[in-house]
């Protein structure tokens, strides 16, 4: 099967790939991997994970609630000097969470829906309908992310 060399440059996958590769090279350029101490590895792992999430969220921009929430979270994490903001946000989220989850129609989704809300970023403040929408898109993006990262990992692991 012949695949054309040029995939759609505007697709989610290509956007994510370019961003993520850029971030990876940047991370790699910071320190050489000569030291294989676990702390170093762990730190790098965190950076890479953040880079992956960030590049995925940036590829989606603000089109989806979960990407906005993730970007918000990432930014607030980087500005960790101000704990007040995060506390405020947490309290806000809690308030919205209580109001939306108690407002469910009696479909009996309570427990699972709250779990799903924890999983999907920004899911606390969504009603079930939108939550399912966001979940679908989030799953699609996660699968893309996994595919790309797997290929990269396989490539590098040769």
């Amino acid at each position, binding site marked *: 099967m012949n695949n054309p060399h040029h995939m759609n440059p505007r697709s989610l*996958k290509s956007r994510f790939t370019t961003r993520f590769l850029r971030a990876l090279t940047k991370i790699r350029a910071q320190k050489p991997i000569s030291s294989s101490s676990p702390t170093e590895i762990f730190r790098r792992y965190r950076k890479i994970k953040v880079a992956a999430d960030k590049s995925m969220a940036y590829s989606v921009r603000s089109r989806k609630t979960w990407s906005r929430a993730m970007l918000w979270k990432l930014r607030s994490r980087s500005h960790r000097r101000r704990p007040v903001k995060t506390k405020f946000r947490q309290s806000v989220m809690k308030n919205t969470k209580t109001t939306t989850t108690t407002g469910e*129609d009696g479909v009996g989704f309570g427990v699972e829906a709250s779990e799903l809300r924890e999983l999907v970023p920004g899911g606390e403040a969504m009603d079930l309908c939108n939550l399912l929408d966001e979940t679908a898109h989030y799953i699609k993006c*996660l699968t893309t992310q996994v595919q790309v990262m797997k*290929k990269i*990992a396989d490539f*590098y692991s040769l």
Partner: protein
Amino acid sequence: MASENGDDIGLAMSSISMFNKPSNTSDPFLGSGWDPMFHKVKALEYQSHPSFVELVPKLSGFDCGNLSQMAGPFGLPQYNQIANSRFPSNYALNAKGGNERGLTNGFRSLDEHRILEEALVGSLPNGNIRKRAPESDLQPPIDLSSEGCDGPKEQERKKQRTGGDSRGKQAAKQDKDGSQSGEAPKENYIHVRARRGQATNSHSLAERVRREKISERMRLLQEIVPGCNKITGKAVMLDEIINYVQSLQQQVEFLSMKLSTVNPELNLDIDRILSKDILRTRSGSAAAVGFGLGMNPSHAFSPGIFPRTTSGIPNTNPQFPPLPQQTMLDNELQNLFQMGFYSSSNMDDFGPNGRLKPEM
């Protein structure tokens, strides 16, 4: 006049005959607005049956859902049945109790013929039994926002435009209240949104719409999440979805951990080739995923993995520096990698020259 017609309720023909009388009788219901209505209805060219046309504004005054049933075949026999079943009670109500209601409704609808259009068209899409061509012609004028007489129209608008929600609910409630005396079964039959035997108040209708939306989304998710075709039931489905999302997130973590231990021995041009390579879709990642998950992450991060897998796979790039340590887990990991990670996702992509060669 009204009482006389009330007596003839049982016979459809008689009720039809009542309407066959000229419209300029002094019927309180079929009053002044009749003629214009009549003409406008005719102008709709919906059908040519005179009694149907005459009956239409009457029923539109009360419950436009009638029209959905009648408008279907446009034939008299069916019309008979419908007139039989519904019309008598309709007319009876108008004759007796809901005079003002029916009257005002009737006049209101009579004055604006477009309501009738809307009623016809609004009910038609609602009619889950029939669909026909003429309705498409009349679809555009549906954005009339006048108080309708019918629930289905309101429901239609409610579905199409969330802006008018409160109004729609109010109007639907009014109709329900006005027609409540003995009309509940009839309403259930007409308001297609509220199926037979179900509650017809605005809250439950809105809830039903919402539930339909949710179930539609669940169906979509069912297609996305692998292995959910046999699952029926929202709770189980949600559990599956949650598990899948969790597994995907764990995979991302695992892969990023893996990437963090990898040596950046490759330079930029290879990165470009890499990106091209990566962008080629591989859908067979399910098996690899399974293996990736099954692997204990702590094992996978030992650098000893990589030289082993290097030996396992043909490679034209000999300048990979050998990675420092090797652990005793190499063998099983090698097997895992070869079977899981590479079998489904990579082996097909790479020709005999290894992965640096774009697949031709």
